[in-house]
């Protein structure tokens, strides 16, 4: 073998570098992604038969794919009821309130300002659409292809081309067609951008770039970074969301999820995603709902597994689908709102001579009613006696757990950190409805022998104001004095 000449070596290196550069564009398209079945459902001790029945798993996987599509192409199957009611969950935009639409359009106008200006000026080459907006991008490319075709037709006509019959091409007509098409783009596209609302496919793409590393492909809270977080990311698949504005353990409203995305959950690893547009966040809400319903239908479908009736039946899956949709659409009826003005912390509680804060302090420690201190402690730091329980096997005292089986500490109320917001109504809702999936109970479910509520709304406001006051300097000093006195 003769040694390679430097010139030849240089050429080979250059060719390889060029190949690498070009290779970026020659990469194959991302393969079709698939949702996986839940490990938790498969490992459920009650579902042993299902776990060992791969045919049933394929049945369920297929049914879920029919109902929800794949990560690359997600979408809801429309049921007859939905068609009857004219409700199409694939367009979450229909569910926005007027105020939300106004905010969305204002936000889009701001974010697309440059693109809108370019389009209105006819500078189509300078338009830069966000890469997550797959549907918008492909629509734009289509529009530009049409313009390019018309430009080509005009060029052909001007070059003296002839049509199939040998007649000269109509240059004036081609010019008119092109002008008309350009005018249409200038007129329609700014509106298109202002009203942009991501498709589920766009939102799935967003979810894959922003959320997947914690929440996982199926929203199981099991992404690669999840294990390093405390508290752990939410598993959407059982439909339980901690921070909502609703009572009765109902599903969250769209605005609850939007609020979490926009504000984050303070002192957890869930950051604010406000840097994305309103439209993108509403789209993510749509997609989280899809993942949650999908996960829930999977659980319910697997629970209905019955080897005698053919494993997983489409009927039971469809029933689960309809039931879960009903849960989500009914959430709005459970919103906790207070009629009238929110009382101030210094207001006197009706029927007592105490202020809200003083009354709240009484109730906080009252063992016969609210008894918040049993978990949150008499020093409010979340270390009350009920925050631990005896492990039945080892007999040791261990931290209580939440519905996901993770140890959970009652909130240290002296830190002034309220994860779902620090407005009185936010804290009121926590006291009123509890926190889903955790041992924090709904105080409205406490009743006497006749079934009357033990705590009135005024009592709940008193607890709310007392809890909010705990992080204030004066209250901490007063509490320390009180403890020193005991």
């Amino acid at each position, binding site marked *: 073998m003769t040694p390679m000449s430097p010139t030849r070596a240089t050429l080979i290196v250059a060719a390889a570098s060029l190949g690498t550069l070009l290779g970026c564009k020659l990469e194959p398209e991302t393969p079709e992604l698939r949702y996986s079945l839940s490990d938790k459902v498969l490992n459920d001790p009650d579902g042993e038969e299902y776990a060992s029945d791969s045919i049933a798993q394929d049945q369920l996987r297929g049914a879920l794919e029919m109902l929800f599509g794949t990560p690359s192409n997600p979408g809801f199957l429309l049921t007859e009821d939905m068609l009857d009611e004219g409700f199409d969950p694939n367009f979450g935009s229909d569910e926005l309130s007027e105020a939300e639409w106004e905010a969305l359009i204002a936000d889009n106008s701001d974010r697309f300002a440059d693109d809108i200006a370019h389009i209105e000026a006819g500078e189509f080459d300078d338009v830069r659409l966000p890469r997550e907006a797959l549907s918008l991008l492909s629509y734009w490319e289509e529009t530009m292809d049409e313009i390019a075709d018309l430009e080509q037709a005009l060029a052909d006509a001007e070059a003296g081309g002839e049509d199939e019959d040998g007649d000269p091409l109509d240059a004036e007509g081609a010019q008119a067609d092109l002008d008309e098409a350009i005018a249409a783009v200038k007129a329609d596209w700014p509106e298109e951008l202002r009203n942009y609302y991501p498709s589920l496919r766009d939102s799935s793409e967003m979810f894959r770039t922003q959320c997947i590393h914690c929440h996982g492909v199926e929203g199981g809270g099991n992404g690669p970074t999840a294990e390093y977080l405390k508290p752990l990311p939410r598993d959407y698949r059982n439909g339980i969301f901690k921070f909502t504005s609703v009572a009765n353990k109902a599903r969250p409203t769209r605005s609850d999820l939007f609020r979490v995305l926009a504000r984050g959950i303070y002192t957890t690893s869930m950051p604010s995603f406000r840097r994305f547009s309103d439209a993108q966040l509403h789209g993510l809400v749509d997609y989280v709902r899809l993942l949650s319903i999908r996960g829930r239908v999977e659980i319910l479908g697997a629970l209905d597994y019955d080897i005698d009736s053919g494993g997983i039946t489409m009927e039971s899956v469809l029933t689960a689908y309809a039931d879960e949709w009903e849960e989500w659409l009914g959430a709005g009826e459970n919103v906790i709102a207070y009629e009238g003005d929110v009382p*101030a912390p210094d207001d006197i509680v009706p029927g007592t001579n105490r202020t809200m804060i003083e009354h709240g302090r009484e109730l906080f420690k009252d063992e016969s009613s609210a008894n918040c201190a049993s978990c949150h402690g008499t020093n409010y730091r979340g270390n009350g006696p009920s925050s631990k329980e005896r492990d039945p096997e080892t007999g040791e005292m261990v931290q209580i757990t939440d519905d996901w089986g993770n140890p959970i500490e009652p909130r240290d109320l002296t830190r002034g950190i309220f994860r779902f917001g620090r*407005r009185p109504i936010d804290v009121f809702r926590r006291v009123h409805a509890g926190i889903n999936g955790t041992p924090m109970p709904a105080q409205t479910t406490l009743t006497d022998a006749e079934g009357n509520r033990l705590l009135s709304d005024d009592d709940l406001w008193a607890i709310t104001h007392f809890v909010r*006051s705990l992080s204030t300097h004066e209250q901490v000093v007063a509490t320390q004095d009180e403890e020193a006195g005991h």
Partner: protein
Amino acid sequence: MTGFPAYVARVLFTVLFVLVPILGVWTFVTADDYGWWFPQNVSTFGPKIDALFDLILWMVAFTFVLTEGALVWCVYWYSKPRTSKAVFSHGNHKLEMVWTAVPAVLLLVIAFAQMGTWAEIKFTANMGLDENGEPGQYTVEAPMMEIYASQFDWRARYPDRDGNFNGIDVVESPYDIYVPVDTPVVFHLKSRDVLHAFFVPQFRLKQDAVPGMTIPVWFNAQEVGSYDLICAELCGWGHYKMAGRVHVLPKDEYEAWLEGQREALYANGSADLAE
């Protein structure tokens, strides 16, 4: 063996090395045309920071061109085929004195040039002063807001109507931070967990947030607008997500916003009811 003749290689390599200073200088000269230069400055002390940057940049540019020139000369000169014997040399006291003294003087120039600017931005005695040097509305003792950094969240806290940051009705604003225009704004920067850094490029302001410390910071934004706030200290896996937005509002709009937030605290939740 085929290949380039030696003299071609010699010229090629010299040209290659000449290109380094030329391209280096060119990127700086044309950076502005490509939008690679500094973002717009909107704070009062910004021009002084930029002037310091320019001073150091000129020093570096001069040294860079000089040393690159020497390097190119060496590449060309010493690649010449020669038959004479190499000269052995060891040490040059004068040369060493020069290359120690010159950088030392330059360092002193930088040190003295920046003292006034550093004092203006970082000394608590100078914080919150208006253009006449008089104390403004906000002081180190009574700041306009507190900003808490935590993994991976920026959160501004505004005092209640009595100016109390420990009050029950403080206003909290995650991500979006609102400040009045043309006002010396003083705030306290705190961290809830690890090191973070408050960095608004348009304000030419960067300050670390240190857990356990309350660090006063100030700026005076001269133009209404919204500016990106980013965390400039690697703070964990989500560091890249730790963004915020500082909105500079006209003074009356800022007051109206804050008052609106205080009122919104007492919303009764009816706005969330299903329609």
